[in-house]
């Protein structure tokens, strides 16, 4: 409540700091260290030779990339990083090319549609006619943020422990920052979000902290709905309520307790497999638990490690529905599971999840209510179309069929039809 009051008072005041909060300033530091200057020269020479030898090297380096190269000590590490930058550049070029191709295609389709519109009586379609009011993105944002501010007052707390930066490599730390960003986003989208607390977060000296601040520049604004602490969770919360979630312990979390404060360690451990979070929990003498991954899932070959955002999503679903099986099946990547041994019900469940994830997610009930109307509407449309074409429609691809449940997209000029017309003529 106090926090809310603070927010309100802050918002009523004229804002001066908001103007530059969306751009992160890049400090212009001049290199005064002679050793670094020498190394820079060595690296530039190395780059030259690598280009001459035909290795994979990007055509140009940005300032930040050069800084990162200076931090790498061995030649092979530099080579790997440069090869990575090269592949990034190539994908960028490819994407650009593809974008142009798509532009041309779209223009063609638009023209086609315009021609057709001349003959037709009324054109239906999303960007012509709709019975819905458009909901703007700002409205949605406000609604989501409101959910979070409510969660900050009444919801269960969840702590993310960001103190593992020293145990990660640079790349792992960057991945970790991205996952922390996703964690916040997924929590925001959920119906019953947690009150998230990012503890031990140092945004000045650590790689992951810096990167996270880059991803969310407005993180420290007073009205931003996220709790960020420099302090440890031991100083902030009641010790008896804390439960550290670590995969190395032996106690499975089967009964989800709504009063406990769970802690998730923000660590990406691709390289080292040491039980660091376990050691930390032991040191502070906290209760420990792990997710019941083996109890509910049949795992395939490979690691059982999950991303931070996946763990938080699982916890969100378990908290809302109290069903470990569905939560785990929904959020654990399906490539990690043993496929043949999944029973039939799982298969169907999973398949549906997969579909709804990749396509539009609209509750079916909405259309079922007006199903009769829609039927009539479709019939009429079909008749007008048949009158226009008086020909059979070509078989549609799978993707289309899926969409047809919700919308009829025939008014959109599509190439298949055009081809068919041409063939018949």
């Amino acid at each position, binding site marked *: 409540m106090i926090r809310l009051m603070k927010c309100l008072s802050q918002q009523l005041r004229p804002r001066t700091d908001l103007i530059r909060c969306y751009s992160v300033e890049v400090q212009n530091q001049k290199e005064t260290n002679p050793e670094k200057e020498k190394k820079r020269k060595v690296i530039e020479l190395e780059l030259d*030779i*690598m280009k*001459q030898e*035909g290795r994979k090297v990007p055509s140009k380096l940005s300032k930040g990339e050069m800084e990162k190269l200076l931090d790498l000590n061995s*030649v092979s590490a530099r080579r790997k990083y440069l090869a990575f930058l090269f592949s990034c550049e190539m994908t960028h070029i490819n994407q650009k090319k593809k974008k142009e191709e798509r532009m041309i295609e*779209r223009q063609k389709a638009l023209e086609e549609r315009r021609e057709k519109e001349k003959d037709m009586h009324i054109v239906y379609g999303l960007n012509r006619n709709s019975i819905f009011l458009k909901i703007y993105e700002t409205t949605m944002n406000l609604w989501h943020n409101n959910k979070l501010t409510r969660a900050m007052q009444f919801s269960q707390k969840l702590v993310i422990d960001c103190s593992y930066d020293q145990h990660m490599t640079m790349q792992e730390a960057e991945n970790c920052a991205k996952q922390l960003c996703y964690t916040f986003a997924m929590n925001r989208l959920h119906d019953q979000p947690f009150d998230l607390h990012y503890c031990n977060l140092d945004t000045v000296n650590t790689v992951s902290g810096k990167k996270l601040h880059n991803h969310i520049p407005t993180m420290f604004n007073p009205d931003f709905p996220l709790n960020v602490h420099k302090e440890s969770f031991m100083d902030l919360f009641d010790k008896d309520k804390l439960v550290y979630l670590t995969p190395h312990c*032996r106690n499975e979390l089967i009964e989800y307790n709504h009063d406990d404060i769970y802690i998730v360690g923000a660590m990406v451990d691709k390289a080292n497999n040491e*039980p660091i979070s376990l*050691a930390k929990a*032991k040191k502070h003498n906290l209760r420990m638990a792990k997710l019941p991954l083996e109890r509910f899932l049949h795992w395939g070959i490979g690691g059982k490690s999950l991303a931070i955002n996946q763990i938080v999503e699982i916890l969100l679903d378990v908290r809302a529905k109290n069903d470990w099986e569905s939560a785990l099946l929904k959020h654990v990547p399906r490539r990690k599971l043993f496929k043949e041994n999944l029973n039939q019900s799982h298969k169907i469940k999973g398949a549906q999840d997969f579909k709804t994830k990749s396509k539009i997610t609209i509750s079916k009930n909405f259309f079922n209510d007006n199903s009769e109307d829609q039927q009539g509407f479709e019939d009429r449309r079909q008749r007008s179309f048949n009158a226009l074409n008086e020909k059979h429609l070509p078989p549609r691809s799978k993707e289309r069929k899926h969409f047809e449940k919700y919308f009829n997209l025939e008014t959109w000029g599509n190439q298949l039809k055009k081809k068919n017309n041409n063939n018949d003529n």
Partner: protein
Amino acid sequence: MWRSTFSKLFIRNYKPTNFIRIRTDVFDKLLTQNPSEINWELFRNNLLKSNITINSTNVDSIIISKCFNGAYLDIALSYVNFLKSNCLKINDGTISKLIRLYFNRITTDGKEITEKDENEIIKWCNSISKKEEIESTIAESIIHGLSLTREWMRCFEYFEKMKELDKQPSDSTYSCVLVKATKENREDIMWKLLKEMTAKNIIPRMSFFLTWFQHHENDKRKIEEMLEFISENGLLLPEAKIQKIEQALRKVFNVSLVTINRTGKCPSCTHKLPGVKLLPTEFSKLATIFFDTILVNNDEFLKTNPEEIKKFREFVDKTAPYDSVIDGLNVAYSKGDKLSVRQYAKNLSQVVKYFVNNNQKCLVIGRKHMKNWPRNDMAYIRENAFLFLVEDLSHDDLFLIYAALKSGPKTNIFSRDLLRQHSHLLNNKLKQIFRRWQQEHQYQLLTINGSNRIIVKEPILFELRAHKVKSTWHLPFTNENQKLAIQTFNLPTSWLCLKER
């Protein structure tokens, strides 16, 4: 959001274009041609157009590097002549590749270098070494090139330069200089380099050992010096070169190719190979290192906790020495980890029984959850062996190693785990000592059959590296890979028995 989902409709025909990859079939055709007949201008221009990653800076070195497989030096030289005649600039990267190609050609031929080639190489080396600052790959190429010529002493300048650049020279760079030093009879330089390499943990290439043996065919003392070096570093030679080595050593020794089985008896000289001998100081050093630096040093909560360490130290001081130390859970789970608790307890008690029947005093290390196992089996273990249970969340392997090393050189360990993850943390010399100790003292449980009799894999009780007994040398070989390897736990596939004449 809406817009992004609808735009997906259009990306249906997404196909990544791979125009980055260079086509190899173009080069395959090129390499079979006669070098004087190739139209280089056409070829070069076509190559430049074919791929966006190929440009005027790297096209030369790409063409030359394609000649590496099979060392097509004449084709590369004809290309260089074409570049010269067209007044195109040849950059440093290309020249360094060309020098490498010269090196490959001459080493694969195995002939003496001609004076013309020698002059060419020196000329190329000079042309890229004029600059003050030099890049590490270029320095390595120069060393490779110069090591073939009369100016090979200049290589050491470039070693110094590489040190300044903080780049470690590769094993082939060192080996080519070693080979040249051997041929020029400069042993002082060679041994100095070898010492430098062992300090940096770089293993010399097989080509060096072969030239050494061939060069000193008649000098027994020098051959033995090198054999001692191999033995000291525990190197295994590749089996592919066994015949060449046999020929080289034939003049000094009576050489015979043998295979030695687990009994350790050589069929040629009928000697029994000696066991591993380690000093008592080495044991205590290993034990303290395992406990103080690996288990405790960085974070004692990581693998155990402080109370437990204290308790275990007191326990070992009171009860040591033992005849063997058993990894309780490793033995219990040896038939699979999805059995009943009763089966686990039975497995363990059978193993303890085996040791009791042999009148041995043993220590069993387990975890605290073993307290819930069937009472009569656990009671049997408690009565007939010492039992130490660590916390459920601690690493039991390190306690096992510490107890075994602390109790003396005769103690064995009983576990199937090869303890690689722990030996990995030791430094190079200690790793070797640990491996040798482990090779002689680790017993492994193979199975327990139906009538509860246990079958044990016993350790190999003789040295697995090159060694000398009574003026007879035994030299092990592996077929694992082409390079030289450091010894493993496996039996070497074949040996050379070198008897004195």
